[in-house]
């Protein structure tokens, strides 16, 4: 009986120590990622900057996205991320990167770039598809990304912005 009781004590202590260690590891990791490193801050900042650019480019109209240059050299799937974000952010306004009948599956950034890079619609096409504004991303060989905003109608204005 005494032996059983001391074993039970040991078992309870072991389980409690393991549980507390697990919780401590989990909470420490979360605190570190959230408040110590700037990983979260950078993520939010990047997201906010993209959102601002998309809102400024769209200004309440449908948006055409274009990706040209050397995006394949980037490790991140940036074109996909920008396109998905734009569709979400601007809904119910249309956002296109190519022909609307073009199938776009997830995790297919290279294909998205190929479509967007090779597709060069004229103003009539953009107006017909309800995307009178255009946001073009360009990636230089050194990996620097710039973007250009254009309005097809009613006034065509263009300016270049360094992100």
């Amino acid at each position, binding site marked *: 009986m005494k032996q059983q009781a001391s074993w039970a004590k040991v078992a309870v202590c072991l389980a409690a120590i393991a549980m507390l260690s697990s*919780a401590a590891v989990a909470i420490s990791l979360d605190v570190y990622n959230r408040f110590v490193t700037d990983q979260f801050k950078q993520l939010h900042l990047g997201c906010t900057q993209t959102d601002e650019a998309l809102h400024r480019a769209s200004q309440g109209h449908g948006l055409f996205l274009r990706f040209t240059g050397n995006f394949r050299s980037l490790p991140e799937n940036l074109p*996909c991320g920008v396109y*998905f974000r734009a569709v979400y952010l601007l809904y119910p306004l249309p956002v296109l990167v190519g022909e609307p009948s073009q199938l776009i599956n997830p995790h297919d950034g290279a294909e998205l770039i190929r479509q967007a890079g090779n597709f060069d619609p004229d103003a009539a096409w953009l107006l017909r598809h309800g995307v009178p504004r255009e946001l073009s991303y360009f990636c230089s060989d050194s990996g620097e990304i710039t973007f250009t905003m254009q309005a097809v109608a009613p006034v065509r204005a263009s300016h270049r912005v360094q992100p």
Partner: protein
Amino acid sequence: MMWCAIYLGCLLTVGYGVSAVLVARKSHIERFGVAACLGPGITALCLIALSMCGWAPSRLAIGLVTVIFAAGGLFLWKKQPPTLTQPDGGPPAPLWWIGLCLAIAAYGIFAVGLDALLYPTIEWDAFAIWQLKAKVLAVHALHPRPAYFDNVSLSYSHLRYPLLVPMISAGMHAMTGRLDDPWQKAPFLLTYLGLGAYVFAAIKKWRGPAAAAAAVALLMTTPVIVFHAGSGQADATLAAFCGGSLICILRWQRDGRWQDLILATMFTACLAWTKQEGLVLAAIDVAAVAALTPHPLRRRNLWAAAAFALAVAVLYLPWILYSRNLPRTDENYTQHLNLTELAAHLPRLPQIATGMAGELMSWVDWGFFWWMLPLTALLSPRRLLERPIWTLWILLICQLLAYVPPFMVAPRDLNSLLLMTLDRLFLHATPAAALLIGLQWPQLPHPLRSRI
């Protein structure tokens, strides 16, 4: 802000309407757990039904659903026999232990609350799939079918995924009257809290508050749950429904109360409507009701299993009918799941097994959560012979292995697929694991209990 609070109040009221009638035990925390998990699920199912009839979510529709469930719950609750007061299944726990576990769980609630209430939706799948659909559902009724469902340039958002989670957020858009509001993820804080409360109440009745507090503190601070619960994705909500259904099925097996089976039906239907993985988990639930009960071949159990399966199928049928004509544009796993393909991809098994084992042991994703399962089993080996425990082990193993066949036939690079999906898939099984950890938690023999 005000409309957000009103919407959360509506979700809880609907949930309480159900839990007041179907939860027989006199436990506030259990009633809250059921209400916080099922309230969003049932409200969303009602809004989907209305949307399929041509009414997009609106304040009126949400108010109507709330009033109906509140009135129905109140009416039936008054007619009910007095509620059961069951003693806890274990000794009372020292206050410092409960306080410590509460403080640990409070950090999880704080972190998920930050993500759900303050931060924008930044997780890739959350905005590309679930919250995009929420906007679609908030703007358009499902009848006539919105153009979104035929737009293949949006096929990356998985046009055929079921709509329960997006409809929960769409209700928030409808209530606040804005598409760009930051509150769309707030209801998922409720389901997270509900999961913790329900698991706590269940373990407390079986093993007492010390085991319950430990298991729930562990569950609610697991990094993967904390990361996903407030992100606006469906996986943590799926886990909440999965946990709820398991608890109800275990209780049905123990007590044979029809109310528990009805609750299990509701949780399982919500599972199926949440994600396609939910269909697999629902099938496991049906198999558990049919085969893992004490007397599976008795007429009462056969009827119960048939009624359970039929009710879940009937509740899911509208989505089968609605989605049958939607374009199939993404990985069609059901088409690939046949013996020929499985046999052809057998060499993938070692890679899948290694990936799964690696994920279970990843302390960055899980802390020592999965290690606690064998540890508590080793510390209380006799418990493995108890019905709820071996039932849970079988269900847990089924839940973990259910994803092996889809991985075998996945028409994509397996390594990247495992890397991207395993944490979320294992998240679905965390309630079963937390229940097991709580039920296996070692206890002191009687004479020692009063001294601690």
